[in-house]
């Protein structure tokens, strides 16, 4: 059995690389974008709010799987062609930005108005207020919800296998179908558990650090 595991492990690890690459790119882009969307959602400029609400509704109201299929198989009909990997990243960023946007909107709204006023009478500019006062507070407020989405993203990334990308789940599935054994699927489960465990620990550390103030 050890020998078999050694034999399929390279394929699984290469699949893990794909899973991680989707995971990181989605997070790196959609967290900052989500913060911007969150600010947009509380803007006084109503057309922007409507537009962003429509976007959030579309992204949260339809399955991520549909969005993936739409981007990769649907858009080429309109002449917009993505590589598999780009299609996956694009769909994931669009989807996760919507979720993060909603989380950040809630975060911005829970910072008391008085904090803005206090910064204002100290003559801080809007940008300085956002950077030095509001963002750190919002970050602390949204951290647990963001953590949830991060864990979800590890597992959601397995959806890319529908557009033929070789991620971790696909690697395990291929091995199981070929060798008629449960071992690859169990290994896949263990690797996902390890990934989410790492995320959980990292999130705990960040949360602990942010607890120096209350």
């Amino acid at each position, binding site marked *: 059995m050890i020998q078999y595991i050694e034999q399929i492990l390279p394929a699984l690890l290469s699949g893990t690389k794909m899973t991680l690459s989707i995971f990181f790119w989605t997070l790196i882009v959609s967290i900052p974008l989500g913060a911007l969307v969150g600010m947009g959602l509380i803007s006084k400029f109503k057309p922007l709010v409507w537009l962003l609400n429509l976007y959030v509704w579309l992204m949260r109201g339809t399955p991520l799987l549909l969005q993936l299929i739409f981007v990769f198989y649907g858009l080429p009909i309109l002449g917009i062609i993505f590589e598999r990997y780009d299609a996956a990243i694009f769909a994931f960023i669009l989807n996760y930005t919507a979720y993060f946007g909603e989380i950040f909107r809630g975060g911005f709204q829970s910072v*008391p108005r*008085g*904090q803005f*006023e*206090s*910064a*204002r*009478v*100290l*003559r*801080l*500019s809007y940008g*300085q207020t956002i950077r*030095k*006062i509001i963002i*750190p*507070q919002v970050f*602390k407020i949204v951290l647990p919800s963001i953590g949830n989405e991060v864990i979800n993203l590890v597992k959601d990334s397995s959806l890319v296998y529908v557009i033929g990308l070789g991620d971790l789940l696909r690697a395990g599935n291929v091995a199981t179908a070929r060798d008629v054994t449960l071992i690859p699927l169990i290994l896949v489960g263990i690797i996902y558990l390890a990934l989410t465990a790492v995320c959980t620990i990292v999130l705990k550390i960040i949360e602990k650090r942010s607890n*120096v*103030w*209350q």
Partner: protein
Amino acid sequence: MLEIKNLTKKFGTKTVIDDLSMTVKDNEIMAIVGPSGAGKTTLLRCITGLEHVNSGEFFWNGTKFDPAETDQKNTIIGVVFQDYQLFPNLTVMGNITLAPTLVKKEPLSKVTTDARELLKRLGLEGKESLYPYQLSGGQKQRVAIVRALAMSPKILCYDEPTSALDPALRDEVAEIILSLKKQEMTQIVVTHDMDFAQNVADEIKRVEQID
């Protein structure tokens, strides 16, 4: 000297302040008193530029200024809020040095030295690296006072400085306000506490509800 001429403030159709004029003399303490709902806090919010006025003019030593103008370099008005509104994510020192370094571009070393001096004067020595949640209400208020003073305002305004404090601390605030007066700070205190107002104020301005 701060002069306010013909100030009117409406919320929708409701007039809260109607054609109010007043003068705050240098080094004096003006108390604004009146029942709740009379527009005391609104008046203070107009003076501090947090509310736009419907009409009226503000003069500092004869020169007209707009308190709501956000990018003025020289701060005329400093504010201590009723609930202090310290920044919870910054230490005591961070709260105090943030605006002078960012807005006035003063060097951090100078701002820090000045801040230590002020903290010491208000009995907050050794609290520099604490976060607001680690302070008592009275200490938070004093940090808020130091934070406002660090911008060297010409006038320091307080919104209900005694409302969140127990009676013993009330006298302490009065002492602080009077000691700042000795250092030639002009101050405006909004309060519903008549005893407190009579204790500290050189002049008392009464505001009444407008029907």
